[in-house]
Structure formats: structure tokens, C-alpha cells
């Protein structure tokens, strides 16, 4: 289910003295099976924009089509769209409200009017996908969970609705390095195995860069850059302009270039950087400035 956005504007508290325009004339297309990083500093409009992806916001200026259906059309079934485009919010405590993990995950499928057997099966599947052991966690009290486990439970609660698109807002925020790595692996698995379109919203490059195929950067309500990960990341000056730190490997490559070494800046991880540096050193003339 592709998402198309045309000339979208958004103003918070419209018609009050506190009005603030958050989106300026945004046009965008997201196709099936894409793995996207939506990145920008705080207040850049990324969360606002993403809330149009599952019809939490209905456009007043501009148009949004989800699977070809206009969300501003009164005949469009918004509830159905929200099941198909899952949204996991930054703070899992805004979502979890039942007593046990199992009951909370069951909330979505129950609203979809699934049979008890189907709900059971979906809970099992969702918990397995996010790496929460069914036997251990099904009856576990929500408040006995750690921060990372709460995030997983929240993601499972959305996955149980069997979405085709999954939007994850700041899922690594507040997690330790290990929890971060684990949750990102879960996301990667979802995209590869379940063929879900994934949109990761973040304000840091390091987490997202390694995973996604396409990066959209935003600043002050406008899209600054949109393209394949490598390309967007190699434009270091543009990233720095909007206050985003490029991943550390790219910064090293950039500094090497400034010192006169002919290395490409579009690398994604240390392994690639190493092989590029070795290649440079092995080419005649490449090491000329080495002194």
C-alpha cells in the first residue's frame, strides 16, 4: 500500500495566537517494501508528517492518498487504514494500558473482531517477532517490564494488527546500546521476513544509517534531502547544515579527504571504510600525500 502526499501543509493551533506552521508544501511517495529513515532535528516536522501516513491527521491543505484512497474523503475507512499502517509512538507508556502483556497485545486484534483462536495465534506470532518469550511474558505485569521490554510489547501490540506498513517513532530513544541493537535487529527482521514497509523516525544518524535503504531528511517543516542512504549520507555538509551528525565512519572519511586522500565519503560501516582506505593505499598515487 503506497503512501502518496501532495503539497501538504500543517499548522498547529491554527486560528489562535499560538499558531505555528509545522509543514510546508510537502510532496512525497512511499512504495511497498521500502525501508525508510525519516530523520531531522527536534521540531523539524517529522512526527507531524508521519501522523499523516496513518490518517491520524487529516489534511486541510494538500492531499494524502493511502493505497490510492484519499484520507480526506468521508467515505474512506480510516480505522481500516490505521490497522494497515501501524504506528508505534515514542513513549510506550502512552499505549500500554492493560494489566498483562498478553491482554495489551490482544487489544488491537480484538478491535479487528478476530476470533479467539486467531487472536491467540497473532499474539504468539507478534511476541515471537519482537523477541518476547510467549510462556514467560504472556501473563507478565506491564509495570514489571524494563524500558526495552515495554518498547517491544508496544511494537507487538501494533504488529498483532498485521500492518503492511510500520511507522516507528524514536524506538531507540532511552535504550542502552544493547537494547538498541536488539530492537533494531527486530525491525530489520520484520522488513526482511515479513516484507513490511518500515519507516523509522529518528534524530540521530548512527542507528538508522546502517539499516535503511532510503533516507529523508527534514528541517523546519521542509524536506531537505531524499534519496538512497549512501547518497544522502555522503552529502555531509548538508547534514551538518541542519545540525545532524553524520555517522562517525563518514566523518572520518570526510576528514581524510580534507587532508588530501582520495577516498569516497559514501560508506555505511567500518568494514566498507577499511576496504576503501586499503584500496586507496594500494592504488599508485593514492598514498602520495601520506607523509
Amino acid at each position: 500500500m503506497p503512501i502518496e502526499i501532495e503539497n501538504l501543509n500543517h499548522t498547529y493551533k491554527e486560528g489562535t495566537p499560538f499558531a505555528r506552521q509545522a509543514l510546508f508544501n510537502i510532496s512525497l511517495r512511499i512504495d511497498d517494501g521500502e525501508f525508510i529513515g525519516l530523520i531531522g532535528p527536534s521540531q523539524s516536522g517529522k512526527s507531524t508528517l508521519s501522523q499523516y501516513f496513518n490518517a491520524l491527521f487529516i489534511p486541510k491543505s494538500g492531499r494524502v492518498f493511502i493505497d490510492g484512497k484519499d484520507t480526506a474523503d468521508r467515505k474512506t475507512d480510516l480505522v481500516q487504514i490505521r490497522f494497515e499502517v501501524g504506528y508505534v509512538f515514542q513513549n510506550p507508556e502512552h499505549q500500554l494500558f492493560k494489566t498483562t502483556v498478553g491482554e495489551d497485545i490482544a487489544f488491537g486484534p480484538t478491535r479487528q473482531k478476530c476470533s479467539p483462536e486467531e487472536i491467540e495465534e497473532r499474539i504468539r506470532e507478534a511476541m515471537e517477532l519482537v523477541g518476547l518469550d510467549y510462556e514467560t511474558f504472556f501473563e507478565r505485569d506491564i509495570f514489571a517490564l524494563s524500558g526495552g521490554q515495554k518498547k517491544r510489547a508496544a511494537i507487538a501490540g501494533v504488529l498483532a494488527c498485521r500492518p503492511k506498513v510500520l511507522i516507528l517513532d524514536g524506538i531507540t530513544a532511552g535504550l542502552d546500546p544493547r537494547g538498541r541493537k536488539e530492537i533494531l535487529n527486530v525491525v530489520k527482521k520484520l522488513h526482511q521476513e515479513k516484507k513490511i514497509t518500515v519507516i523509522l523516525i529518528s534524530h540521530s544518524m548512527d542507528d538508522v544509517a546502517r539499516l535503511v535503504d532510503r533516507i529523508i531528511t527534514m528541517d523546519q517543516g521542509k524536506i531537505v534531502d531524499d534519496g538512497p542512504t549512501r547518497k544522502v549520507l555522503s552529502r555531509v555538509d548538508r547534514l551538518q547544515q541542519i545540525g545532524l551528525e553524520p555517522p562517525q565512519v563518514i566523518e572520518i572519511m570526510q576528514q581524510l579527504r580534507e587532508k588530501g586522500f582520495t577516498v569516497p565519503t559514501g560508506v555505511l560501516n567500518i568494514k566498507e571504510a577499511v576496504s576503501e582506505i586499503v584500496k586507496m593505499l594500494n592504488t599508485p598515487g593514492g598514498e602520495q600525500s601520506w607523509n
Partner: protein
Amino acid sequence: MELTKNLTLGIYFPGDTTLHCLDPRTKIAGTTGLITLLLFTNNYTAYTFFAAFALALILAAKIPLGFALRGLRPMLPFLAMMWLFQIFFQKPPGSEIIFSWWKLTATDGGLHMGTLMSIRVLLLFLLTTILTLTTSTVELTDGTEALLRPLQRLKVPAQELALTMVIALRFVPTLAEEAEKIIKAQTARGVDFGRGNFIQKIAQLFPVLLPLFINAFRRADEMITAMESRCYTGGTGRTKMKVLRMSKNDYYSWAVLLLFALMQIILIVKIAPPF
């Protein structure tokens, strides 16, 4: 879906008008006085002058009129209910029946009572909104505390009361914002807010109220820690950075308020209520 958009109570609207710069004691005591006066007002002429006065205050504070009035909107359904109840169930002596339908009879006295009461509630809300729009929370605490201080001899914990009130006011917008986020998170899981029958609508409240309450308790807990880590131990012996002082404008304001109050009292006494 913006809950905070229609919220004006508890929000400070920054400005530098005379009204903003008045001593908070003047504003709090003045508002209290006006509200007391409002409770005794019982005819349309007096209410008209009252509304004009409130309007003048809004204009003087340079608050956009639409913004100030927007806050009244959520009250309207509640008021409409009260109005209908008054029409059908209030029967002041000597009132005439306008029409009857089924077992209900509407009287003109009830109609007047309902209308006057609605105006009273609207003005009451408007006056309070003007106070909070022109007075920052810090000024509100300082003012309330100063006004309650004489009661401290009677063992009334003035400082604590003022603090409690201000914390409550301060968290109205915060909680509204949080409720908005929770509503969104639940909408994303297929709750269709505002649809369905009465029982379904009640059921929709649980996924919002439960996280909201839990988070509110958590927030209170965090605030206690923050206060204690800054050595807050209660009010005794605390000094103020900004000492409250009455200015010339405060005395002028009191003169205006007293004149207005006198006029209102004359209007209340001279003009008979419409029922």
C-alpha cells in the same frame, strides 16, 4: 485532533499591557470580588454591563477576542443541558406556562432563570480565563500566598495551599497534551473515538484514562524528587526574589473596580429580576 487548541484556562498569554503588569494581588482579589458580584447579579441590564466590562478587560489586555472566547466552547453542551433543566424544572412562583409537552411544562420564569444562569457561568469562566491569561503562574502563587498570609495565624498553610493550586493549574495543559498523545496511540490501534453508542463511548475512555492517571502519578513522584533535591521544605522562612509592590496603576484599578461594583449594586437593587 488537537485537544490543546481549545484550551485557554491555565494558559498564560504573554504581554506588557497595564493589565499584565498589575500586582497579582490586585488581579486575584479583583477577580474574586467580581465573581462575588456576579453571583448576586440577577437582571439582564446588569449582566449587559458586566459583559461589556469583561470585554473591555480582554481588549485592554490585547488578547485576541476569538482566542479568549474559544475557551468557552467546550462548556456549551454542558450549559445547554443546564439551560433545558432550568426551563422545565424551575417554576418560580407567579411564572406562566409557555408550553407543555408530554409531562414537561416550560415556564417563562424557568426560561429566565436558565438564561441568567448560563450567562453567569459563561462570565465566571471568562473572568477566570482573563486572570490566568494575564498572570504568569509564578505571579499567581505569589499573589495567592500574599493574600492568604493573614490566615497563617489561624494555622492555614497559606504557602502550601498556593503551591498546590499553582501546580494544579500548571499541569492542565501538560495533561491535555499527554491525553492527546495517548488518544493518538490508541487511535492507531483502532479505537474510533467519538463513534458508537453510549456504552461504547464509555469503554473508549479506559485506554485513555488509565495511562493518563498512571503517568500523572509518576509525574507527581518525579516532581517531589525534584523539589526535595532543591531542598524544598515548605514555606516558613522563604524569601522572595520579586517583592510585590502596589503601583499607581493598582490604585487606579481599584478605583475603577469600586466604581463598577457600586454601579452594579445599584443596578441589582433598583431593577427587579425578570421572574
